[in-house]
């Protein structure tokens, strides 16, 4: 549930926003909503995804782009965008952000409308009209379902965790900033050296590396709270694909 008190009140929209940020008018909060079965949700409950107890589903993370900025990439600068890409969103697009980026974003409201200043590399998907545009090297996958009913004679289905069928593929990131970690000898060593340079197209079945915080990579698009596509899709970074099946 999003607490109103965390929103600062400003009197007008900013004249300019910083590089690497997108100003997003968030979906309306605290509006009474009704479930499919007709139950009215209270103001607090309407902000949460009732299908899940996961904390990452309980923050608002979609809205409409109000203002965009330039992107700045410089691998040696801590203020740089994490990946080199083009600005692919424009005013009026609907966008989804990673929960952690949405939660950490600077937030304010003007005349009761909620806004967030979200870093561009925290955005995963944009929707322009009927066009779905994965951003920042993300792929949107359909789940692969495996039937496992023969032993216990009860039909049930299991989603294969690390596989999916590419439903929407966006453009590749052309470069990444390099993170350094401490090695055992005390020096610094590269802890990643990512590349998006693989050919993945819509319809491919792919296997991917399960990474920390994998739950973050699910978009609960079927819920009322972010009901736009009417389907549940899996988010996967192109750099994490390990094989095409």
């Amino acid at each position: 549930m999003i607490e109103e008190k965390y929103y600062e009140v400003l009197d007008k929209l900013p004249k300019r926003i910083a590089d690497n940020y997108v100003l997003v008018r968030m979906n309306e909060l605290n509006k009474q909503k009704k479930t499919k079965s007709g139950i009215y949700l209270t103001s607090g409950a309407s902000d949460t995804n009732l299908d899940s107890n996961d904390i990452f589903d309980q923050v608002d993370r979609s809205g409409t782009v109000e203002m965009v900025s330039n992107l700045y990439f410089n691998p040696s600068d801590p203020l740089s965008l994490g990946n080199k890409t083009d600005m692919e969103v424009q005013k009026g697009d609907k966008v989804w952000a990673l929960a952690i980026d949405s939660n950490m974003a600077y937030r304010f409201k003007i005349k009761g409308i909620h806004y967030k200043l979200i870093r561009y590399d925290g955005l995963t998907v944009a929707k322009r009209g009927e066009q779905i545009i994965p951003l920042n090297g993300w792929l949107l996958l359909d789940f692969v379902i495996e039937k496992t009913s023969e032993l216990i004679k009860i039909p049930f289905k299991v989603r294969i965790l690390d596989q999916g069928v590419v439903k929407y593929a966006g453009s590749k990131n052309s470069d990444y900033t390099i993170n350094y970690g401490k090695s055992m000898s005390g020096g610094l060593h590269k802890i990643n050296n990512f590349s998006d340079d693989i050919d993945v197209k819509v319809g491919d079945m792919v296997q991917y590396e399960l990474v920390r915080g994998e739950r973050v990579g699910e978009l609960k698009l079927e819920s009322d709270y972010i009901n736009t596509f009417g389907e549940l899709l899996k988010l996967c970074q192109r750099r994490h694909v390990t094989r095409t099946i």
Partner: protein
Amino acid sequence: MKIHFNYVLIEPEELPEVTSGGLILTEKPKPNKGTIIQVGEGLPDEPIVYEVGQRVLFPINAGTEVEEEGKKYKLMRQKEILMEL
């Protein structure tokens, strides 16, 4: 004091130590808004985009606090500024 390169000097706005509900805060709140009072020369590939007198918003922990003649200022890279108000 003269500011160099891509840095800007901001005079932060003082925040009230009493909430709108009348509570007295034990710790002085950190400001996140201020007015630019000096800018650097810029860098060859990064000209200064802000001007003196503009009101801006920045993360509360951004930049360095500098003090001159008993007054506190914020010194930060222009890219740390979140928005011009």
